[in-house]
């Protein structure tokens, strides 16, 4: 495989992994109006959970269960769901920006735990040398990456289809009603508190799933992969792609991640070495610019939400 094709495969694996996170956020924000600003925290729990469960036994480290990869990913999802349940019970009475502040802080706490709880997470070094699923079946890293791209793509499509079926139904109608007017929904026999908690846990479970897939691909886990900037990037993906639309979430993930990596590549090629470290700021500026332009010219995103949610009314 040529260098470019290999790079494209690598890029798409990461972009599709993030698209699963974005679909989880879309469920929370796009459909239900939950301002989760701690996305990266649940992604991290899924990643670390999977890493601890799949990793080989090591001295001085808790875990190292050496479980099969699918079991470990499911374990990571369960851990993310449990964390979401606890966080949700504590914070979901908060509205809008207050929920955002609380979840943002929680995500930072999770990252700090990952950085400092060395016995479990390996601290700043992280956990390295994790087994990559079915790696031994493939002759070259290039062929393996092709396989992993197909694997992640299938999972992303499954998540997409499952979400589409679920939201184009009375369930999706109920989520939108909670998003639009909680008081009115409550006066019409719906229980918004229960709905918000359910959606928060479900969305965070998807973020945990993506974390597990990420670890399976890169084969290690490091606290540097779970900085708050990732939450910002995921939000950018959702806003640009189109909040309230699952296809928009995928398109936004690939598009924004494309802009991010391309601009990173451009900076490393074009900027003099002395300015490289400052150059990274250009990437953040570009994403910010993209969000502003989207909000001005296409406030509903590239693919906005459809007017009628239930497919049964057509």
């Amino acid at each position, binding site marked *: 495989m040529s260098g470019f094709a290999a790079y494209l495969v690598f890029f798409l694996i990461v972009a599709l992994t993030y698209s699963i996170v974005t679909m989880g956020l879309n469920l929370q924000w796009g459909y239900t109006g939950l301002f989760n600003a701690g996305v990266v925290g649940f992604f991290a729990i899924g990643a670390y959970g999977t890493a601890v469960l799949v990793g080989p036994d090591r001295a001085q480290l808790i875990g190292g269960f050496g479980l099969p990869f699918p079991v470990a990913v499911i374990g990571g999802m369960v851990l993310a769901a449990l964390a979401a349940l606890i966080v949700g019970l504590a914070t979901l009475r908060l509205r809008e920006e207050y929920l955002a502040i609380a979840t943002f802080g929680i995500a930072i706490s999770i990252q700090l735990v990952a950085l400092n709880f060395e016995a479990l997470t390996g601290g700043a070094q992280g956990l390295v040398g994790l087994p990559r699923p079915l790696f031994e079946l493939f002759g070259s890293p290039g062929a393996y990456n092709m396989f992993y791209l197909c694997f992640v793509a299938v999972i992303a499509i499954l998540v997409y289809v*499952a979400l589409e079926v679920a939201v184009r139904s*009375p369930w999706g109608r109920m989520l939108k*009603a909670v998003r639009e007017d909680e*008081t*009115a929904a409550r*006066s*019409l026999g719906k229980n918004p508190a229960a709905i918000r908690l359910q959606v928060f846990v*479900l969305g965070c479970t998807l973020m945990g799933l993506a974390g597990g897939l990420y670890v399976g691909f890169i084969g290690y886990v490091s606290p540097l992969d779970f900085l708050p900037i990732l939450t910002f990037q995921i939000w950018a993906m959702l806003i640009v792609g189109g909040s309230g639309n699952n296809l928009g979430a995928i398109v936004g993930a690939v598009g924004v991640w494309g802009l991010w990596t391309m601009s990173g590549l451009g900076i490393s090629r074009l900027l003099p070495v002395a300015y490289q470290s400052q150059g990274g700021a250009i990437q953040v500026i570009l994403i910010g610019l993209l969000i502003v332009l989207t909000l001005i010219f296409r406030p509903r995103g590239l693919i906005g939400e459809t007017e009628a949610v*239930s497919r049964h*009314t057509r």
Partner: protein
Amino acid sequence: MDAGPLPDRAARGGAAGKLEIKNVEKRFGANRAVDGVSFTAEAGRITGLIGPNGAGKTTLFNAVAGEMPFDGGEVLLDGTRIDSLPPYKVFTRGLARTFQIPRPFPRMTVLENVMLVPPGQHGERFWNTWLRPGLVARQEREILEKARSIIEFCGLSPVERQLAGSISGGQQKLVELARALMADPKIVLLDEPGAGVNPALLDTIVDRIVELNKRGLTFLIIEHNMDFIMSLCDEIVVMATGKVIARGTPDSVISAPQVIEAYLGGAVE
């Protein structure tokens, strides 16, 4: 006129929806917004609740509907206590309410605003949409059919596919009525159904309320439009500064000195 899927309790023998309000109190600090209010909205009747601004009418509605916890008293629906229930349970017991300022779900179509309502839909559990799609689809067809006939009854068919945020305020009030009807309530509490509605649409609203009442649906209505309330109501309750100051037939209430005083503020000797 064919009742269709609309409630017709009169035909089924006997109206329900008797709402008893007993000594209900609601204080905001030192302000007694609702100060020991007692009255009964009889089943199958249209009861009007009037009074000057600040009398505590909407606060009483919010308390009865479970939206706002109150400080004392009891509320009974057909003899069963419904106070201390959250609003969504009050609703499923058969009490529906509309809001003074309409609260449609603005970025949902009129049709979906209405289809949302029936409680306990199979498709409200997301796993049913994966595991039992046939069941969900079948129920959706029933709900769609019912929603269509209620939308037609409320004169909203021309706008059923528009976003509820894009239709007129009067139409939004009709959307609220249509939503309430979807759950076959026993009693509907309307908070100023006529406010800000053009006269033609107001006639439609009055006409629909009369028709529904003939079919046995009980109403409790807050309204400032006197023509509206006088022509519609069987009984009127007048509130001022948190208390009931008069109740009776429209004619008797309108001429009661304490009512005139409450409205005009002047001393009537």
